[in-house]
């Protein structure tokens, strides 16, 4: 069961349709956008796990710009860029800017599904690590409070003992007076 939500941005209606069908058949939840601007608008209103975008799209927002917008919206969103063989350099540049992967045209869907499986796997591991971290934080927090209380109590007791020792060994007053003062210290602590 694939539970990830995917946004596909491509100006070619045929490719868009192809992506939509193949991904839906594989069980993904898919939304498509005909250009970068539409995709950016969708990112405003909907939460996606993965964005698959053509690098070259007409209009103000191309693939690289969309990548930047997506990463600004949600830092853990994964972006796969689609590129023509001739523009591999741009794809590498996209990866430097935070894209998780790139695919060459024409897209090999088996390859795409493998990459999506990997992304899902990593997300599951991260979620698990996050859950464990959360559990650890809760335990640690509660242990810390107990330890802090004990640390403060212990310090007070230690200081009280130091003062008692001082009072009881004070050679300037007699034994009765020392005991009186020690008892007074204990009563008013």
């Amino acid at each position, binding site marked *: 069961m694939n539970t990830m939500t995917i946004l596909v941005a491509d100006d070619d209606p045929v490719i868009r349709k192809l992506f939509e069908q193949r991904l839906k058949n594989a069980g993904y939840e898919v939304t498509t956008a005909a250009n970068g601007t539409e995709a950016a608008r969708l990112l405003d209103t909907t939460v996606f796990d993965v964005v698959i975008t053509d690098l070259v799209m007409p209009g103000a927002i191309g693939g690289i710009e969309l990548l930047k917008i997506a*990463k*600004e919206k949600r*830092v*853990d969103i994964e972006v796969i860029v689609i590129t023509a063989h001739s523009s591999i350099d741009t794809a590498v540049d996209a*990866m*430097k*800017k*935070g894209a998780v992967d790139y695919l060459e045209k024409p897209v090999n869907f088996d390859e795409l599904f493998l990459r999506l499986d990997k992304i899902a796997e*990593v997300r599951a591991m*991260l979620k698990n690590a*996050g859950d464990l971290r959360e559990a650890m*934080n809760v335990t*640690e*927090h509660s*242990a*810390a*409070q107990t*330890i*802090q209380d*004990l*640390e*403060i109590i*212990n*310090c007070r007791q*230690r200081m009280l003992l130091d003062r008692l020792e001082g009072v009881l060994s004070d050679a300037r007053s007699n034994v009765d007076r020392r005991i009186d003062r020690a008892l007074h210290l204990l009563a008013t602590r």
Partner: protein
Amino acid sequence: MLKITSEEIKLITKYIYDISGIYLDESKKYLLETRLNTIAEEQGCASYHEFYAKAKADASKVIERKIIDAISTNETLFFRDASPFQLLQHKIFPELIDARTPKTPALKTTLKIWSAASSTGQELYSVAIVLQELLGDLSKYTIKLLGTDISDAAIAQASSGKFNKFEMERGLARDKLTRYFTPAGQTWKISDQIRAMVNFRKFNLMQPFTGLGKFDVVLCRNVAIYFTLEDRKKLFNKIADILEPDGYLLIGSTESLTGICPRFIPKRHLRSIFYQLH
């Protein structure tokens, strides 16, 4: 995987203690095997006995360094356990700045902070970010932020200022992430401005602290837990020696100095504890 015998455990744990001060008892068999296996195999050793002999005989100390890198645990989160950083921001730094600001306005305020087991740098960079956010214009301050660790690999990673993308994106608030880091491939890189505030170098806490100078704040969190009681006593005594008389010590939130160093007094602020000299 290479199996370790109980006799070898004794040999190796003693060796690790000698080179690092990290005390592992015999219950740490699994940890030893998982962390040392790769290095032992890489060295072509058929047993841990052989591995031990090879490490001891290695004059270049390459194997020793690899063992230390593998055994010392590396904290990997920024602002992990937010309370010490809130304590620094809202209590310790404001108090220190009050105390340290010179009467002559032309003079700079000096602050010296030491992250004693800085690992891969997240703690010290977090402190630098807190200072940057608190002070804004740093030109009126001389800030010395020192991070030390026993592991060469940890120091190298800390110095690079590059951090794992996945850890970062989940560990750090978005505003801090985008303000202080830039994406670099599968990593995030700390901004040059923050990087320039800190220094990292290799240091073994078992050694004397001569030449380190004095500090206003020492962070020694979650490292003494790997030391014996005797070594903990020595460590916190040495820290007491290099702390300014009104300086601050922060230890891990589940650590305690009870029975370890009576020179320090615990003080509570909100839900955190810090230590000052008696």
